[in-house]
């Protein structure tokens, strides 16, 4: 458990709810509440900011429609080989009416629905970067790699992962996914990486030279092959056995003489993706929503909801209202 990961967030929530383990509030319920409140904060405070650099205009098409999920487009930058310039934001009623539009390159943009429109009508493909406020990725419980209940395998808890912006859920594997490949010679190190794709199957991928073994755990990890395409890494395992060879899938990871190191390596938001100043606001909002479930604490929930709204406004203002410097801010006068 790390500070403010899902386990820690639930622990802090349960501290105040005076329910140390799931009875009235299930873990799934609290996880949903925490992710719902995080999304709400990101939406209302505009605090999860990203840059979509995969955008391009299409010749003779006004709209650019492959925007990633976003709440709002804040700025659009035209990427050219010699220069980069932010486009002017307009409204659709100004299309064709903005001065100096005799150039072929995009000059202005507007937001409409889930697309942005470009003026003048693009005559060719142009690369754009968009500065977005977007929904944050869900906070996922860590996969928490460890020796399985069948100790020749590597157990994982349930977790979520994303492939090409699509969310997938992986179920817990308490028995463990078996290590594969060649045996590790006595005293040498071997490494494996657990990978997962869209089909939800956990693949155990061995380092290329496990059969010879590596002189250290770090060298073994460096020997792992490139990640399979359309897969994400879940975690890594290194193993050494001081009193014999280690046979993957046969030797127990908890056997005498075996030293196994498990590392979660998933590229996921295991802590809230919104800025850190909003993390306690997130807990406050989640506490209010959790207390609202119980009619006896509805009044308290209402009070906390008010505090939550006020705290969110404070931080949202602080986060958003960073005005540009005026020349007078820099001069001594």
């Amino acid at each position: 458990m790390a500070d403010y990961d899902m386990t820690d967030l639930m622990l802090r929530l349960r501290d105040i709810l005076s329910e140390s383990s799931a009875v009235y509030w299930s873990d799934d319920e609290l996880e949903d509440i925490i992710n719902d409140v995080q999304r709400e904060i990101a939406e209302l405070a505009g605090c999860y900011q990203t840059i979509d650099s995969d955008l391009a205009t299409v010749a003779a098409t006004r709209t650019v429609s492959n925007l990633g999920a976003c709440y709002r487009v804040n700025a659009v930058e035209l990427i050219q080989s010699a220069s980069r310039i932010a486009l002017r934001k307009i409204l659709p009623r100004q299309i064709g009416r903005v001065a100096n539009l005799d150039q072929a390159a995009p000059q202005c943009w507007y937001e409409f629905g889930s697309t942005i429109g470009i003026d003048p009508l693009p005559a060719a493909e142009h690369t754009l970067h968009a500065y977005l406020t977007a929904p944050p990725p869900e906070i996922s419980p860590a996969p928490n790699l460890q020796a399985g209940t069948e100790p020749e395998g590597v157990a994982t808890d349930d977790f979520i992962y994303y492939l090409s912006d699509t969310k997938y859920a992986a179920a817990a594997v308490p028995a463990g996914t078996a290590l594969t490949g060649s045996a590790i010679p006595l005293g040498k190190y071997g490494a494996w990486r657990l990978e997962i794709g869209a089909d939800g199957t956990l693949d155990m991928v061995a380092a290329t030279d496990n059969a010879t073994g590596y002189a250290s755990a770090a060298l073994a990890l460096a020997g792992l092959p490139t990640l399979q395409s359309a897969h994400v890494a879940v975690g890594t395992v290194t193993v050494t056995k001081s009193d014999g060879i280690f046979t993957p899938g046969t030797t127990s990871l908890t056997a005498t003489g075996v030293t196994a190191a498990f590392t979660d390596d998933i590229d996921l938001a295991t802590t809230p993706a919104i800025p850190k100043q909003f993390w306690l606001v997130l807990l406050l909002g989640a506490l209010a929503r959790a207390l609202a479930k119980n009619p006896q604490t509805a009044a308290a929930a209402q009070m906390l909801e008010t505090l939550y709204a006020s705290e969110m406004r404070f931080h949202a203002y602080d986060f958003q209202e960073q005005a540009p410097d005026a020349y007078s801010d820099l001069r001594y006068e």
Partner: protein
Amino acid sequence: MWPSLADARARVRRRLHETTAAFWTDAQLNRLINAGALDVAAKTLCIENKDAAATTKATRTVGYSGFRVNFVEYVPTSGDPIGLHRILPRQIGRVKCDGAVPHYWCGWGDTILIEPLPAAVSNLNLYVADWPAALTSDADTLDATAGLPAEVHELVVDYATIWALVKDRKYAAALYRYASYVQRIQAARSLYIDRRSDTRADIVIPDRVEIQSGQRGGG
């Protein structure tokens, strides 16, 4: 000894009238005290650190860790550092740049954007409002460990007390303390952090000073 984690916890316990752990465990209060340090630092922006950073060639973004960047300084390979001008993303490419070195910056998510697009590695100093480090052992302190200045230490105890009272469903008492806490947070931010520079007018000895009726506490 104040302001250690053990002493902060003892202060919270005195306010809660529970001198030894019963309804509130030490671990729970430690979590609340650390959350208090985070809340106070987030609201007052009082942990001020100067972090070195560098641009990457052809990459506009520079990452940082902390609540936010307040100022950015460009450090040339020779000559004196110079403060950069803050802009907004919509001003990219529309501001005057004299050469290819960093002139402007703006915050975006957990990065800052540099204008013009860096043509090479350039060194920067980032004046950051930072996160507090966690207090993990009883001897860890709010100043040396967490990095909080002395003027806000008591606020951390206030925060922990408020949420401990919520756990005990003493909502009215918690709300009273919360109102006082917010007021003192705002005062700390205004007194110690929200600064402005002197103008020439500020440092000139005035010809005469007039104090209007009512400006000296109702005189």
